[in-house]
């Protein structure tokens, strides 16, 4: 079963990689299979790990207990009639299946969105504004062991403060970007170019890491231990791509080709 799994994984990987040649039938098959499998997986997970154990099972146990039935395990503190509230909101959400009463689902969405909005405001104000403003302003003058270190540290702290102000000025559209504002905004642009350059450098690292990890697996799976799965399937999938391309090209010669963007 493990070997079959590896061969399936390799087949899926190479089918997706066939997109590097261009958009083709084999890639599309793999892509659509992925969508279907993921959706089914998500449904099973939501049912088996959320709706059943957190709602239906506890409510069923509460009902049995109330009717005088015996339970294999005693009721815990979270198993009580209060669960009727999420049950009602859950049922309201499912009214989306019925066009005449689907407006009832809005009550559930309003409950979720309203509560989340209310909770968000104080937490993000505290974590992202107050706790971020303080270290931007204090300490600006930092005393270290040597004078040179102190100058460098204090200089950096001042540079951060200037940068924050300059970038905020660049995004402040209520004032016309003229004279002083224009100069400050230009400083902000340079700060952003440095930061975005850093982000670009990191992005290259991140994307390359994912490809390297995939190749590490493919090389491992191409060994004799896995019956040369990567090598065999590389030629197999390539053959399939060529075959489907030849089939689709029949009578397709007059169609304009897709222009690669990058």
């Amino acid at each position, binding site marked *: 079963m493990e070997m079959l799994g590896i061969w399936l994984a390799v087949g899926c990987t190479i089918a997706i990689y066939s997109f590097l040649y261009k958009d083709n039938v084999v890639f599309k098959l793999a892509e659509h299979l992925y969508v279907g499998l993921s959706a089914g997986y998500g449904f099973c997970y939501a049912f088996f790990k959320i709706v059943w154990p957190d709602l239906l099972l506890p409510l069923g146990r509460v009902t049995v207990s109330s009717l005088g039935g015996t339970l294999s395990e005693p009721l815990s503190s979270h198993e009580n009639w209060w669960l009727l509230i999420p049950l009602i909101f859950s049922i309201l959400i499912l009214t989306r299946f019925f066009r005449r009463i689907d407006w009832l689902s809005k009550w559930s969405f309003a409950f979720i969105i309203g509560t989340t909005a209310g909770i968000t405001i104080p937490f993000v104000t505290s974590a992202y504004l107050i706790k971020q403003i303080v270290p931007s302003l204090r300490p600006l003058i930092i005393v270290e062991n040597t004078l040179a270190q102190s100058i460098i540290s204090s200089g950096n702290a001042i540079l951060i403060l200037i940068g924050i102000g300059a970038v905020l000025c660049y995004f402040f559209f209520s004032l016309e970007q003229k004279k002083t504002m224009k100069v400050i905004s230009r400083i902000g642009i340079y700060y952003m170019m440095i930061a975005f350059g850093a982000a670009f*450098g990191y992005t290259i690292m991140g994307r390359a890491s994912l490809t390297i990890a995939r190749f590490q697996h493919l090389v491992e799976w191409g060994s004799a231990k896995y019956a040369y799965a990567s090598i065999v399937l590389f030629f197999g999938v390539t053959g399939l791509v060529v075959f489907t391309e030849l089939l689709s090209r029949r009578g397709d010669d007059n169609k304009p080709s897709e222009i690669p963007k990058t």
Partner: protein
Amino acid sequence: MVFLKKQIPLLIALVTGIIFIIQFFVPHPASQNLQAWVTKWISIVTGTALLLGLTSLIYLHYQKVKNKTTGWGFSLVVFLGVFISLMAGFLPTIINWLTPSPVLTAGMTKGSPLIWIFNNSIAPLQASMFSLIAFFMASASFRAFRIKNIQATVLLVSAMIIMLGQIPLGGLISSAIPDTMTWILTVPNIAVRRAILFGVTLGAIATSLKIIFGIEQSYLGSK
């Protein structure tokens, strides 16, 4: 009817929103327990909403098959994927229910058919899709990364320092490379990220207030 369809949801959002803003400032155990319970309920209701995702997907692809739109055959592959996942998820559980002692590893733990499918098809498919991006980034770097002005040059120099600073080679060439990288990340980068964070946070707070006070209603849909 308009009251039920429109005013009630707005009222629910207003009341729950205000309650939970106030709740933050009330450290009493009852207030804390209220938040714990309501967030638990939201988790359950959101879980139910996840079930809706599958039905929306099926409906979308059913329409494609019904109208025979371009590529409708691929929609059948989506159905096949859904069918396989659901069978792998539910069938072992049903079989175990019907037999006196469990005969299959059911559910969502290692060894169950659904997790086998996840490990050997869903995970490699997703990982491969993400790993494709590197190829297009390499191509874009060659075609689009141009030094047209000073700003682009600054961006390029910064990117190169970071690219070299993150790999062992950078430190081997000169210790100045990782040091400069650290300076970039801890001074100009912090300034920019923090300024953006302020903007995003103020935006999030404004949107939340608009939701609570019924100015923002897009979550209620068009009807």
